[in-house]
């Protein structure tokens, strides 16, 4: 499956499961999802100034009976830490897709500290972490995460790894 194909399939999957609020700090790894959400009249496409806004927004959407997804880069995980108290303590469903930097083949040394800390930080705040390493992993992983979040009320992150999305070229 080519990159555009899994990204298109991923948008369809989220819409089939009634995700209607897409909030994000832009990242190249989420470009297709962001573009599709902007073009879709049936969803709210919400650019954030910082990722922790999205954690609170996901909780507010759930209070109102809607489903949201938070799209962010690995560096944004660090901006969310205390706000995850809300989703954890409130048992709010959280579905977040994290495009990874600072791992497989990274060429920017600034990305390593947070990239390497993503999994332990999320787990420390009670977020379950799934990984997608290749295109055929994406749909099964996100399908699983949707069930875990919206049916079982868990907080779940799917890491779109650098092996999947490719290291950024400079």
């Amino acid at each position, binding site marked *: 499956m080519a990159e555009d194909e899994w990204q298109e399939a991923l948008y369809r999957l989220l819409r089939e499961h009634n995700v209607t609020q897409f909030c994000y700090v832009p990242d190249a790894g989420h470009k297709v999802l962001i573009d599709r959400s902007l073009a879709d009249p049936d969803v709210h496409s919400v650019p954030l100034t*910082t990722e922790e*806004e999205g954690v609170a927004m996901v909780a507010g959407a759930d*209070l*109102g*009976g809607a489903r*949201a997804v938070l799209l962010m880069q690995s560096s944004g995980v660090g901006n969310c830490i205390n706000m995850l108290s*809300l989703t954890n*303590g409130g048992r709010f469903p959280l579905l977040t897709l994290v495009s990874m930097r600072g791992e497989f083949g990274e060429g920017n040394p600034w990305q390593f500290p947070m990239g390497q800390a993503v999994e332990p930080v999320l787990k420390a705040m009670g977020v379950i972490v799934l990984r997608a390493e290749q295109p055929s992993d994406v749909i099964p992983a996100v399908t699983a995460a949707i069930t875990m979040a919206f049916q079982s009320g868990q907080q779940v992150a799917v890491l779109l790894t650098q092996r999947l999305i490719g290291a950024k070229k400079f």
Partner: protein
Amino acid sequence: MAKLNKLQTATLPDAVLDRRQAVPALIENPQDFLMVAGLAGTAWEMSALTNESPGLFGLGGAMGAAPMMGLGLALAQPRRRVLVATGDGELLMNVGALATIALQNPPNLTIICVDNGHYGETGNQDSHTGLGVRLDVMAAGAGFPVVHVVNTEADLAEGRRLVREGGGLAFILLRVKEGPATHLGKKNLVPHIERDRFKAALAQGAAAR
């Protein structure tokens, strides 16, 4: 006690309103709204004001969450009026949320900032607004179509009208003296219980409509 200097640009008059009267006077009938209240004073006083209504989600932590929770809720419930009550300290912690909310421009959302100019829960230190930082100007700069400042009782009537009738996304800066919020001390704001109560009440309300 040593203090930082007030900003030379600080031009608003000293606050004169007591929040224990001004907040109920502004909101009037809280049962008409879906509400999110930020920590800490606003959550306690909204809890007291609403007699612990299940239509209120009160925060006891996650500082900075209330405005963005209000956005998610307002977009999910476009036919209900959503009210966020937040303090100056909480709003300052995530002030970029004003920009995010203004871009979405949900017409059913009103954000009330109860601004006492102090961090009331932590020793009453001056907050940035107490030293002259203007949250109303920030909201206007973010693009809020309606911004209203309540300095005196005379400003309350227009605030009440905006809360009730809307007329678009609104930001109301309610400037109050330092001093305690109403706190009945009954409720512990357990987050998952708050969530369950809120969602059950909303579902019941929807069924009754």
